[in-house]
């Protein structure tokens, strides 16, 4: 077989063409072609380690936070209690998330919670203020009505209007970081219930229908990323807890873009059926997410698999 100059040229052109396409393929590989799991469940690590692994499996923080965007990290800082008592989100997890946001190029990361106890004491004793300031985030005040603006909630059944914290409305990205706890009335508190900390008048929800209000509120705006901290799980006497007997060291973390799915997985950890937690069903009907955990793509990761 005779190799002509024409064939050689043809083949070499094809080869160079192929070599050029490889980097392009690589770029696409990280964005649209790969399908990410709906829920990442991680076990047996420290809260910050688990988040490192989990967010990498979900495509890194760059997928959610673009350069120059402002981010709201909303942990649960409701109670004047120490990290070991499990009533608030673990501070090192909050710090780690802020570091990831900063690394992804976030211009400003803010943290706040409308606390149940006195704000200053909650921020201080939960250890979250220290962790946030160390990671370069900003703690915002939440104890005055002037920080809140009234907003209509489109499609809300009971909650038609709410006074919402300005930072919740102004931030480009919202990362919800609740801690998984038993709750005396709603049976469980995790991601959807955690949004009670961004509004001013929480008593309105209690007065006019707690479950419906919890499902109504995310219609205004849902979280872009939900990280449920189940490192220390409060299994009874929630949401405040009385002694350390109430908490169990479960060492878990759930990361998802679907808050309802994350809550459904979380209620399974507390041995509850999704139908027992009433607001999950309502939220699914509002198309805020899915409670269909059997048909979801869940990635389970062990940090230190026992031999």
């Amino acid at each position, binding site marked *: 077989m005779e190799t002509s100059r024409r064939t050689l040229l043809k083949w070499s052109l094809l080869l160079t063409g192929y070599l050029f396409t490889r980097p392009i393929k690589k770029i696409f590989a990280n964005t649209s072609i790969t399908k990410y799991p709906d829920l990442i*469940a991680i076990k047996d690590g420290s809260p910050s380690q688990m988040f490192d692994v989990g967010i990498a499996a979900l495509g890194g923080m760059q997928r959610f936070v673009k350069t120059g965007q402002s981010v709201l990290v909303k942990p649960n800082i409701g109670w004047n209690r120490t990290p070991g008592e499990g009533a608030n989100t673990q501070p090192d997890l909050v710090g780690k998330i802020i570091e990831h946001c900063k690394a992804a190029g976030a211009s400003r990361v803010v943290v706040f919670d409308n606390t*149940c106890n006195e704000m200053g*004491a909650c921020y201080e*004793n939960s250890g979250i203020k220290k962790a946030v300031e160390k990671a370069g985030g900003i703690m915002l005040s939440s104890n005055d009505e002037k920080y809140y603006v009234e907003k209509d909630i489109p499609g809300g059944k009971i909650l038609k209007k709410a006074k919402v914290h300005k930072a919740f409305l102004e931030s480009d990205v919202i990362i919800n970081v609740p801690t998984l706890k038993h709750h*005396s*009335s709603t049976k469980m508190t995790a991601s959807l219930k955690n949004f009670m900390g961004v509004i001013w008048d929480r008593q309105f929800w*209690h007065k006019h229908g*707690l479950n419906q209000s919890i499902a109504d509120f995310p219609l205004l705006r849902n979280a872009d990323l939900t990280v449920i901290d189940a490192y220390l799980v409060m299994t009874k006497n929630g949401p*405040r807890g009385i002694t350390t007997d109430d908490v169990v060291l479960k060492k878990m973390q759930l990361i998802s873009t679907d808050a309802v799915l994350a809550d459904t997985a979380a209620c399974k950890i507390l041995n509850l059926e999704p139908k027992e937690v009433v607001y999950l069903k309502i939220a699914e009907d509002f198309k805020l997410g899915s409670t269909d955990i059997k048909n979801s793509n869940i990635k389970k990761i062990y940090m230190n698999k026992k031999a």
Partner: protein
Amino acid sequence: MIKKIRFFSQLSFFLFSIILLIGWVPNQHVHDFFRSLHFFPTLNYLAKFIFPTFFYITILVFIAPLFIGRIYCSYLCPVGFIQDIAFKIIKSKKVTKGFSSLCFFISNFILISSLLLIFTSSNYQGIFDHFTNFVRLFSLTLAAGVVGFIFIFLFISCLLIAPLFSPRFFCQSLCPSGALYRILNQHSSLDIIAANSCNRCGICETQCPTLCIQDGVIAKEACITCFECLESCPQKAFDIRYKSPWKNNKSLVNKEKKRRDFFKTSLLIMSGILVFFTVKKTSSANLIKTNLVIPPGAKSLKNFYSSCTGCNLCLTVCPTKVLKSGATQNGISGINKPYLDFNESYCSFECNACLNICPTGALSHSELARKQVIKIGESKIDEISCIPYKHKRICGSCAEHCPTGAIQMVSIDNVLAPKVNMNFCIGCGICQKVCPTNPKSIQVIPLTIHTYAYSPKNNMPKQQQISDEDFPF
């Protein structure tokens, strides 16, 4: 030179007390030290046979006037400092003798009733004593009601306007500590006496900050022993003489005067005892029933009102601002004394600041763990207006906030409704604060005598509710 030293020492103590009372020094020992320099707040401890920290400093301050005169009044007292400054600006004329002896009679009467009323269930020394009034200037400026405002206004006008007709009007005629120090000073071992070289030039009379010198003779009952006359005299005629305390100079004793003094003293004591029995009879009637919750550590309403002088220092340290200064809701004996307003706020479970700062021992110091079981009231649910009972809908605002687990949600007609377990309820009032109904469906009923609740650690053991699987989904 003496003038400058005195001014500097007064100014520095004034600044120290301001810094302390504004709350920049949260150190408890500094507060205890400041309290120990004052006789009346410490006396409230002694009336209950408690010996507070720095007690020996109070003893020193108490016996010091017998040897060195009213050093506290002239060199430290911040209230005296304000009056001295006001006097320097206003400059009143000579005080008439009749007026000043009336002043002394009034202040003696206030002193004797303050001393006796410590043993009744109402404590009125806070109305006149300089320590309480001075603290109130700081503690009530932000939270004053009408009554508190009237007290502050009267006190400030006593300090700033009264020097028009009498220098140190407050010290000489109202302050019971001033009266006590005056009596001690009258019998002190120290005398300032003009020698023969005095030529009655009258310069010292104009320079004296209390205008107590006349014709080279110092009226000892008005003198605050500032020693400024030693310096102001151009002849240097004044001299300090020592004698043993409580021994009168023979030459000055006048039989006529002695008899008059005896009548005055017995009149004072009789009227003091009369006031004591009147107050004892009337005030106990108010203490049977109350609708005000009093702070933890008060032990009982009677114990609290017999020691609290109404300085309201506790209001400044309260993180949740639940403490309010009382008006006349509990009768006259409750004026200016703090109570807890649970419609506005709640008593923080993790805080015992008011117990530790109380300068009079009305709130006895307690460890945090001990304070957490002090029961100041009991929550009561109105099952007619409470949402889960009335509307058959979950609410549970009270149960989720309860720090001791006293409020538990139990299933009533398939709805979770709150029930209070009185064994664990301490009456912190957070349930009342967060109750969404109006009027509140859960309210704290105050206890007149505080008791202890069970420790929340003993609360009923419930089943752990958690999945054993690694990934239960």
